[in-house]
């Protein structure tokens, strides 16, 4: 069967009525998550895992996995649409990937062009989403065919590369990012060792035998950490919201943003495919590019529509591109895709090259549903933008305690232990303290998900080679991955020594 045939089968799954409903719920919640400050795509996806798990409880395993990943992915790219809304209307980005959108978007809103800015952001996101999906469709099969030839040594090195990429770009200090990565790997070793059955670092506590649940840690570090930060540092004054006059962009607006959208989509897609370089970096690069190619760069920061169209397209394309390493290689490139991967593993569906052979319904159903989801988002965002803008006005005094309550619900519904609730609170405090002092927490969560897989592949590779560590450098592909990983860490350091500024990625 060719790619087209698989895609058609995927659409057959995505068009089942309950999957359409799942996609719709996903993108609506995603948009709300993007609009609400305090909940990022990462905690949004994490919090919905227990809900989808219960919703799909009666279904056969594979269609349950397909349906829930359709919903969760909807939250992920829906949040990319929603993130622009607060940037434009309030000058406070809902997500880090929308920071640059605020530069010109807020200025446009000040000039009474909020509607144009919002709709261009939605159109750009839509175009970018489709471009990224086409790239995904074209690249998915060839890439997974290549990845099928990988042995454990190659996988081990490739995962190290993934971790190196995320640590190299995250935060201000690489030492701190690496410490967080290693800490995440360490947390992953807690529990009963899958190979030998020996309990490690459990101190004879039965609750620790199963290991620490990544969901609890992710929600605690991100959602609760953010809540604690807001409670401690900010007063709860609510800012005035810019008014939306007309929703449709003018012909002039469309003409001016056509090229930025095209450039942003392509740029964003390729940045998204790289592990570690997520939506935030993509939007920054797109903004810089637009400013460079523009005829009057001075107008940026004063309400130039290209400064909204480019970055918004780029961050959406990047979130689509980030699905490629996740689905074809089984390696998440960012915190949010790590959580999506955790959700798939919960359903016993292992992302990776075999995904397209073993579970074509899950893989292609998801891809097809993303086409539908993007169309829904475009339709939803244009007329309903006023409704979503209203969500911003939810007072913080109600929002923050409810985020805590939702986190408690989400964690308890999956784990059924109060131990995880205490762990959640502990992680919340740690998340706040760590990110306050520039210790990035995304690498920790990524390492926690990848840790057990890294260890298993390492041990399998060493078993094959009878304990000879040189297997990792004598296999050519593995050696290439390791060299790239080292370069990824070394190049920013070298640039730093030569006195250049390095763009850092702070994705949550």
């Amino acid at each position, binding site marked *: 069967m060719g790619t087209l045939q698989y895609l058609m089968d995927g659409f057959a799954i995505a068009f089942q009525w309950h999957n359409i409903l799942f996609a719709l719920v996903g993108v609506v919640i995603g948009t709300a998550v993007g609009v609400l400050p305090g909940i990022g795509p990462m905690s949004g996806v994490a919090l919905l895992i*227990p*809900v989808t798990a*219960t*919703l799909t*409880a009666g279904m056969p395993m594979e269609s349950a996995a397909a349906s829930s990943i359709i919903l969760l992915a909807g939250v992920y790219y829906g949040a990319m649409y929603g993130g622009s809304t607060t940037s434009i209307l309030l000058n406070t980005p809902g997500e880090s990937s929308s920071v640059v959108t605020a530069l010109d978007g807020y200025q446009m809103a000040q000039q009474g062009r909020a509607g144009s800015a919002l709709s261009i952001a939605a159109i750009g996101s839509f175009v970018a989403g489709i471009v990224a999906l086409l790239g995904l469709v074209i690249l998915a099969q060839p890439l997974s065919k290549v990845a099928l030839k990988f042995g454990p040594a190659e996988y081990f090195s490739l995962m190290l590369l993934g971790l190196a990429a995320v640590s190299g770009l995250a935060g201000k*200090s690489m*030492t*701190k990012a*690496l*410490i967080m990565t*290693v*800490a995440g*790997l*360490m947390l992953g*070793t807690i529990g009963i*060792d899958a*190979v*030998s059955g*020996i309990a*490690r*670092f459990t101190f004879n506590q039965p609750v620790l035998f199963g290991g620490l649940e990544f969901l609890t840690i992710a929600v605690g570090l991100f959602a609760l950490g953010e809540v*604690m930060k807001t*409670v*401690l*540092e900010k007063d*709860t004054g609510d800012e005035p919201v810019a008014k939306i006059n007309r929703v449709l962009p003018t012909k002039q607006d469309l003409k001016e943003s056509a090229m930025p959208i095209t450039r942003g989509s392509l740029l964003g897609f390729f940045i998204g495919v790289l592990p570690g370089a997520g939506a935030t970096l993509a939007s920054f690069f797109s903004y810089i590019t637009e400013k460079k190619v523009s005829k009057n760069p001075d107008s940026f920061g004063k309400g130039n529509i290209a400064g909204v169209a480019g970055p918004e397209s780029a961050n959406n394309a990047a979130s689509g591109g980030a699905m490629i390493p996740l689905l074809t290689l089984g390696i998440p490139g960012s915190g949010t895709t790590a959580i999506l991967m955790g959700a798939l593993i919960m359903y016993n569906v292992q992302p990776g090259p075999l995904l397209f052979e073993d579970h074509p319904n899950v893989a292609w159903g998801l891809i097809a549903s993303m086409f539908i989801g993007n169309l829904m988002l475009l339709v939803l965002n244009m007329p309903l933008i006023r409704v979503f803008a209203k969500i911003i006005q939810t007072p*913080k*005094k*109600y929002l*923050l*305690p*409810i985020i*805590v*309550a939702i986190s*408690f*619900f989400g964690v*308890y*519904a999956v784990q*059924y232990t*109060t131990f995880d*609730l*205490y762990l*959640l*609170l502990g992680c919340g*405090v740690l998340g706040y303290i760590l990110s306050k*002092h520039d*210790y990035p927490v995304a690498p920790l969560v990524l390492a926690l998900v990848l840790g057990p897989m*890294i*260890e298993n592949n*390492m*041990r399998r590779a*060493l*078993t094959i080679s*009878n*304990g000879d560590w040189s297997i990792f450098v004598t296999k050519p592909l593995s050696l290439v991955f390791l060299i790239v990983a080292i370069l990824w860490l070394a190049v920013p350091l070298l640039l730093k020594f030569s006195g250049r500024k390095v763009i850092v990625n702070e994705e949550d």
Partner: protein
Amino acid sequence: MKFDKIAGVVFLAIGILFIVGSLNISNNAYGSTVGPKTFPLILGIILAILSLRLLYEAFTAKVKEGNTEKEKLNYSKFAIIFGAALGYAFFLEIIGYVVATFLFLVIAFQTMERGKIIYTLIISAVFSFGVYLFYVNLLGGALPKFPLFS
């Protein structure tokens, strides 16, 4: 940079404890040359090295924080909400989901901003009952019951 010094010492301690801990893991996995202790041992060593590097960076960093203004932090607000959350976790299985959630939300809302007690009561009640009914009755999930009905 004071925080980094403390953090460096803490991470160094964790690294050393991890090394000691992994050396104590019995290494009797058969059929495999690499036992369960190898990976944690490597991690412990890497963390120890990285924290030394962090300490070095923290101590050599130029002190330019002459005029750091102390941020005003709402410690009392935070303490009450955190305490309420701890109580929420502790009492959840004792007094049931609805009551525990309701009480937590009322306390937290009122801590964030005093007044409007009726709104507070309505929103807390709607959220706690709503989540329970939706999740347990509609979706068939399980949460700690009402103490009255169990």
